[in-house]
């Protein structure tokens, strides 16, 4: 049977091992997609991905001839007991100028809480040009029971912003990081969070 091997044919054992190795390799490839996807998003601004660490190399030549409407959107993740809003609905900015906007969040529980804001920029073609120098989204925010906090974001819209973009939406989603930080039973059933 297997003795009647044709020239150049691989033995059954070695072929089986190679195919198993292929399967293991594809399992690893599934995980390799994670950093690949991250790199892809960072480069292209895909999905409105914007910087989550302070931007370097920011130009400071202000282009007064161009006005960009900036809009703020705030969202609280479904199960997070927060109130979260922007102080202003929006503002008008010039490319190259440095600006500051303030956001306010309140912990509605009587417990100590840690929150994380996740930013996103639309349209995604603008994401790479919206550069945050400082942001409350760069790190976790701690809240005492019932505490209200005013938090800043400082940013520059660089003048390489594509010509056709005249409005940028900056959106923040506020997450309770309990799921990520404690190991209490809350984790397994986010739907049954006690308030």
């Amino acid at each position, binding site marked *: 049977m297997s003795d009647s091997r044709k020239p150049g044919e691989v033995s059954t054992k070695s072929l089986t091992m190679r195919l198993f190795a*292929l399967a293991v390799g*594809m399992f690893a*490839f599934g995980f390799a997609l994670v950093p690949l996807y991250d790199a892809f998003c960072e480069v292209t601004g895909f999905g409105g991905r914007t910087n989550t660490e302070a931007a370097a190399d920011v130009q400071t030549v202000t282009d007064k001839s161009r006005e960009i409407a900036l809009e703020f959107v705030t969202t609280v993740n479904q199960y997070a007991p927060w109130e979260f809003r922007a102080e202003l609905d929006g503002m008008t900015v010039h490319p190259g100028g440095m600006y500051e906007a303030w956001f306010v969040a309140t912990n509605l529980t009587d417990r100590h809480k840690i929150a994380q804001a996740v930013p996103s920029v639309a349209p995604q073609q603008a994401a790479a040009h919206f550069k945050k120098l400082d942001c409350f989204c760069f790190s976790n925010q701690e809240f005492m029971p019932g505490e209200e906090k005013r938090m800043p974001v400082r940013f520059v819209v660089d003048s390489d912003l594509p010509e056709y973009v005249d409005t940028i939406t900056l959106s923040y989603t506020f997450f309770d990081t309990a799921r990520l930080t404690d190991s209490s039973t809350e984790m397994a059933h986010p739907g049954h969070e006690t308030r």
Partner: protein
Amino acid sequence: MSSTAAGVHAESHHHGDDHGPVKGWRRWVYATNHKDIGTMYLVFSLVMFFFGGSMALVIRSELFQPGLQFVDPAFFNQMTTMHALIMVFGAVMPAFVGLANWMIPMMIGAPDMALPRMNNWSFWILPVAFGILSSTLIMPGGAPASGWTMYPPLVLQTGDAFPFLIFSVHLMGISSIMGAINVIVTILNMRAPDMTLLKMPMFVWTWLITAYLLIAVMPVLAGAVTMLLTDQFFGTSFFLAAGGGDPVMFQHIFWFFGHPEVYIMILPAFGVVSEIIPTFSRKPLFGHDSMVYAASSIAFLSFIVWAHHMFTTGMPLTGQMFFMFATMLIAVPTGVKVFNWLATMWRGAMTFETPMLFSLGFLFMFTIGGFSGLMLAIAPADIQYHDSYFVVAHFHYVLVPGSIFALMAAVYYWMPKWTGRYYNESLGKLHFWLSTIFVNLTFFPMHFVGLAGMPRRIPDYSTQFADFNAMASVGAIGFGLSQLIFAWIVFQCCVQRKGEKASQEVWESPKGLEWTVPSPAPHHTFDTPPRVTGGVSFPHDG
């Protein structure tokens, strides 16, 4: 070396190979014989077909009228999710693996599969996997209800069933990968001496390609669900935005598996139909080699079209264009196959036995599903169709009168070889016609309600969709009952052993090595490899 079937028995002298199978439960639990394992796969998938089908009937009963009738929405969602998981991983895939086990060794002149003990494992893992999955129905929080696509963050809200869902998917993956490795090693190493790759029958070819797809993508699915598991229990944030992850990334990884998966379910069906249409047209398969290249092209393209499932996630325009055109490109090799089947029938001396009827039904209705697929591929239009009943209509047309009809055709075509008896032809034809009428009554109206805006995966709907939904529900119940005829035919033929005795050839001069062994096929076939030149001709030899 014997060249005929008659020599098969005479020369079996290896340490008592001519004994029959062992008696009792040991034959099945310790099975290493490809025919026994094939039978177990086929029986298992038939049971799962009825199990998953009964869930479909729960869904259609609830949707018979607007408003909530029978089940609460949470259970409804469990039904849609479990129906899909069971039909995809429990019915369609194992059925094709069962056919592969039974037929591939007999079609390439091999005595058995290359790795018989691993074969035993790949089958017996399946009942365990589906035992685990089914047990979630009675767990606190119920069965998984997030859809078979398991998108986070929704899937992370599954109750106690969550880790069981993940582990059952792991087990199904392991089973499929081992089965696929076995198929590849068998095909590459155990062909009869003169059977070159391009002389292989189409069913063997399509399975070779399918097996490579399985090895390439099942591990990726395993990786994706492992990430879900660690996100839920071990504090990782692959898909949790709060920790820097991205839920859309799950969709990319899932569909990188998911799109090749749909070809895993249809390529062996193409193979089956490519065997049956030539037999009942009494002509060789038109364009055998172009069929091989078409199937390979489809397999390659399946890796670069995944994001057409995600047009509404907000992709850059260039991304949408790429995935739209790459998807439409698949219509070219698929068209090659459809036209080759038509050309095979052209001026053939056709007869319409049950396997041929199911193959023709496949050809016609799979093409309808292909066309609605092209409509869905149009990125700007997809935004309207996305997650509507139009999508449900599309994938059921390619899966039910597509894959399932091809499976039915295969069972009718090869059952006389397996059992040595013909099935009841009149009942077979009745089964075909009832199935065809009801499958269209079920799924065709879904195109209309989908285009009119009815979303999928909901237990209630606007009253304007009531009439078409009532039609679909009647069709579904009719289709479900028609399958009982199939179960009865199989029972009569395989268990009761009723029916006319089949000859060695079974049909009128069919091509292929499986028709050179007696009917029913003996427990051991081709202990010595057959000669394929001269005596036996192949579909494309003319």
